[in-house]
């Protein structure tokens, strides 16, 4: 479902961030950040408030200008890609989506097809199919006719998730994309992402707050603190007391969940 243009050779690193300095006027949030995302990875980005997680996603999606270092997407410097072309490869789900006009939920999902459409073109069969699939995966079919301004916060996030899946990017960037959902929906969405990741090789880069959700689904976790990478690796190797206590400045207890052999973290007051 989610694949890049077949004609283009995709380099091993989909996204490469090198010594990135970025932030707001007079205040650098990211200070010399480096990492690379390979095709087909499922990465969680974690860290305390103000560690630069959201700033990193804004930089990766070309919204914040970078002040130093470089970002490459599919081997091209980010700034060299045209807006629509970048959007065909990098799809983003933002924190707290806000839709200001009373569109129906289905109309919102269809907006996700924008980067694939020519100006005067009506929705093609592929567009309709991508929209249908995205709504099926996120279980938003029942919301199709409802107005986006009249659904709950969690429902809105699912619609926005559907919109972003319909965009069919090579990489999916998530910024606290499930924060307003209840635990059942949260797990459902992450299971869908895991399924797309396994079956279609979708690359996921998710900023999240919930260490245990990350431990459950991510294959690699990057911990940020004060704009720098503190730890980067598989959950087993980074979910250790030394790292967690440095990042969160809180005592932790780490347990393995029987049967599924995943780690879970308890923060001790």
């Amino acid at each position, binding site marked *: 479902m989610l694949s890049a243009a077949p004609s283009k050779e995709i380099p091993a690193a989909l996204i490469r961030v090198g010594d990135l300095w970025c932030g707001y006027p007079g205040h650098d949030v990211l200070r010399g950040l480096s990492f690379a995302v390979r095709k087909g990875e499922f990465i969680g980005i974690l860290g305390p408030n103000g560690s630069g997680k959201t700033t990193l996603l804004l930089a990766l999606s070309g919204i914040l200008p970078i002040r130093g270092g470089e970002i490459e997407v599919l081997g091209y410097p980010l700034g060299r890609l045209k807006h629509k072309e970048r959007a065909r490869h990098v*799809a983003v789900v933002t924190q707290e989506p806000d839709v*200001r*006009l009373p*569109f129906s939920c289905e109309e919102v999902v269809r907006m996700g097809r924008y980067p694939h459409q020519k100006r005067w073109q009506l929705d093609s069969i592929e567009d309709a199919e991508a929209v249908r699939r995205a709504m099926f995966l996120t279980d938003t079919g029942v919301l199709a006719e409802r107005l986006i301004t009249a659904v709950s916060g969690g429902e809105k996030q699912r619609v926005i998730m559907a919109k972003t899946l319909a965009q069919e990017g090579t990489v999916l960037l998530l910024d606290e994309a499930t924060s307003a959902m209840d635990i059942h929906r949260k797990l459902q969405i992450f299971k869908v992402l895991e399924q797309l990741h396994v079956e279609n090789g979708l690359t996921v880069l998710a900023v999240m707050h919930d260490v245990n959700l990350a431990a459950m689904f991510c294959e690699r976790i990057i911990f940020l603190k004060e704009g720098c990478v503190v730890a980067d690796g598989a959950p087993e190797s980074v979910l250790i007391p030394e790292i967690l206590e440095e990042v969160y400045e809180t005592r932790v207890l780490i347990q393995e969940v029987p049967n599924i052999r995943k780690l879970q973290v308890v923060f001790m007051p």
Partner: protein
Amino acid sequence: MWLGLLLLIVVTAFITSGIGPLEISYKTILQLWLAPIHPAWSAGVDDTVRYIVINVRLARIVLALTVGGALALAGAVYQGVLLNPLADPFTLGVSSGAAFGASLAIIAGVGGIHLLGISALPVAAFAGALSALYLVYLLGRMDGRIHVTTLVLAGIIVSTFLSACISLLKSLNEDSVSTIVFWIMGSFAGKSWTHVLLVLPYLVLGGGVIFWYTRELDILSLGDIQAQHLGVDVQRMRLFLLLASSLLTAAAVAVSGIIGFVGLVVPHLVRLGIGPRHRRLLPAVLLLGGFLLLIADTIARSLLTTGEELPVGVVTAILGGPFFCYLLLHRKKYLQL
């Protein structure tokens, strides 16, 4: 639906061209309307009557349709681009800016100058409109963010200030004091096909830019950041759309003065009826804006039995005010204030 609106407009135009101080039978009007198809049908119609129907009434009707469409379209775009349900050419101070620019040009004596076939008046109005919009934009985002109400507040301040400036200009240039009402309240009195030809190119140009961006206007309602994520060049699009709608406003104001409420109310009316998708919304807004301003102008020119005219802005405010009150009281959620 557009076809229905179009038909309604034609029928209304036909009916209203029979309204006026001189009684003209609808049979005669029909003859004159059909004359382009078969000239012989209008044979025997008095030349004065012909002049009144074609060059006075029909010109005025077409001008009202054009100006109404332009203002409503501009309003829909301001609302969509600024994500502000209270935005329109009037509340943003753009109309007053255009009127100020135009009166300045008239006072300076360049109002009648034509350069390369382009009249200086709409150009001066456009400059005034853009300056006012820029000023309102600066005032409205003093704390870095633009709030719905701050922007409109800034618009009202700039608008009131500029209206006062227009009055001052006219008072200093005393022989035209009586036309202050024209600029501040709007009027189509004494307008001809020349004025239609003055506005029409700008409507086509501005409207063209606006219709070019219909899909992007939808996406912009997701907010700047999400729109950029989808690959919309938000900065550029916003600039072009604000320029286009200010051009529409300026051209409309240059021929008819400041007419309020059309740009504010019509987009809301259409959105309540057929939803917010701009591909359907904008054509309907264009047509309904023209239709409603034609109705308002017909009322303005025929309500008083003494034969005097009301400023058309008075009629639009009297009709539009209560409707907006209804939106405020009962559809607060829709307005998202």
